[in-house]
């Protein structure tokens, strides 16, 4: 039985899977699921109980797109390091670009103190501006972009050092 963490719409699900031919026995977050899956390229026929559903499955690197019964699910393989530990409620010190685009302005310098909500970087894509701001009070420890830089989603723009909680 293989075990993977799959993010569906960003929410982790632990999937345990055993396969014999077309028969798939799975546990998704400990809920058992028995399916018969016939695969023909992107067209999958999925039989569960007395219901047969046609699914369209497209894999793009670590992401699997699944259309089934009018629903669209974007599923991503998660490595356990990403889902297991540091998550919930902790502000990320690395402020990343939420979208691809161009840096219009950088509003902070290394060493500067910022308050929650202070603008850090102004991005533009498709002619709309988005202001990336600080999650919480912090000191700017690095600025990785300058006005005019093109950035990809997830690229680190600014690194913050949060004040230690009292």
């Amino acid at each position: 039985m293989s075990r993977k963490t799959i993010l569906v719409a960003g929410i982790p699900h632990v999937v345990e899977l055993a396969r014999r031919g077309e028969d798939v026995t799975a546990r998704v977050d400990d809920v058992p699921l028995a399916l018969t899956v016939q695969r023909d390229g992107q067209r999958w026929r999925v039989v569960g109980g007395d219901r047969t559903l046609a699914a369209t499955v497209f894999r793009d690197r670590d992401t699997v797109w699944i259309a089934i019964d009018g629903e669209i699910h974007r599923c991503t393989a998660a490595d356990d390091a990403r889902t297991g530990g540091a998550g919930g409620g902790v502000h990320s010190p690395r402020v990343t670009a939420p979208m691809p685009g161009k840096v219009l302005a950088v509003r902070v310098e290394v060493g500067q103190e910022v308050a929650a909500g202070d603008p850090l970087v102004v991005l533009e894509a498709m002619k709309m501006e988005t202001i990336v701001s600080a999650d919480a009070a912090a000191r700017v420890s690095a600025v990785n972009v300058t006005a005019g830089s093109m950035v990809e989603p997830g690229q680190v723009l600014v690194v913050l050092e949060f004040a230690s909680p009292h």
Partner: protein
Amino acid sequence: MPAVRKVLIANRGEIAVRIIRTCRTMGVASVAVYSEADADALHVRLADEAVAIGPAPARESYLAIEKLLAAADRSRADAVHPGYGFLAENAGFAAAVNDAGLTFIGPPPQAIATMGDKVVARTLMEQAGVPVVPATAVLPPDPAAFAAAASTLGFPVVIKAAAGGGGKGMRIVRRVEELPEAVAGAAREATAAFGDGRIYLERYLERPRHVEVQVFADTHGSVAHLGERECSIQRRHQKIVEESPSPAVDAALRAAMTDAAVRAAAAVDYVGAGTIEFLLDQEGRFYFLEMNTRLQVEHPITEWITGLDLVREQILVARGARLSFEAVTPRGHALECRLYSEDPAHQFLPATGTVHVLGEPSGAWVRFDSGITAGSRVGVEYDPLLAKISTFGATRDEARTRMLTALRETVLLGVVTNRDYLLAVVAHPAFAKGATHTEFLAEHFTGWTPPVGRHRDTAAALAALALGGPAPRTDDGARLGTTEPSPWETLGGWRPGTGQR
């Protein structure tokens, strides 16, 4: 009298495709233009001819007037259709087209210029007896000047671009402290979007409806209207769901609004298709917002309820024909949803990628306008509108039910879209009741997360199954699918032995 036998379409995406199709039904030849990013695009494949006009950035292609005119000359087109967006409301472009001896399928440059300057337009509308929202003249981009004006108008206020449209350069301000950032941002965004940074201040109406009237004028002085559309469902001032008629407009109000709209169009000696946008407040008073001097994105819903092809009417008017209709009696109800490549769960940030799978909705009274096919790349260069889904019914609820079915049938894999968000909006009880206003999404959909769905567990299992197999090849042939990209892959870009980079 201009012939209009061969039309160059100075646009891309779904609107270029839509115009090409009407040209074909009229026996008019079509010429597509395309940037390097669009060489394989649907509009290029559908047109009778296509001309390359330069690199991906719009200002070097779809906004480059001299390249478009050269393309028209080279292809011997006798007319230019600007679509919407890009140069559609650029009076200089319309004038340049006319000066080149071509027919501009749109209004005279003077009408575009007048309505394009929101401040001039306001004054003219006041003179024509069309109600307007209280506002200032253009102000210097100085927070103090805006603060003084805001205290006279009363908060909330909205900063707008004099050259504006589409929500670009717009900022709603509720408190005086927000003014400095808002003034600077609006001016910057206006400069970037329109090449004109002039901004002004207007009183902001709380929870109004956005109701607009489609007008049509010919070169013989006739102006007619084709009823109203309600477009209150907006995110970041961008419409996402539209309908016609408006659930809030009764016969008396319709008569008053359409009268005002016809007066507004007549006041600028308008020709062709145009839209007068109004804000309708909760007391049933309406105010002129702006005129869009072009075909609107949401024109299909007017086509549904009138039985007309608005692009065909535009071409007929451009040929100098009289309006083919005087008074149309709309029937039924139509809805449109705009499918965008954006992530509604993350502030509607634009999403990019390749459309790997595309399932289009169909069936009775369903229309799908799109500029994409499976394999299309969705980049950051252009507007994130992928497709428009419109439905018709004898009643609003019939059209709405069809829309829910059509949206579920719309399957796009490979790029994040707002489909599930649109589904949730159209299914929402307040929308079902017609209780719509421009704050609808802010009130009902803040913090929206994608639905769990009935099959999320199955999807997770299928994904694990798909990920368990061999890694698929990507377009460029690189072997991928490992969780940890190897340095050889991340380096990229080298082609050993060819001497190229």
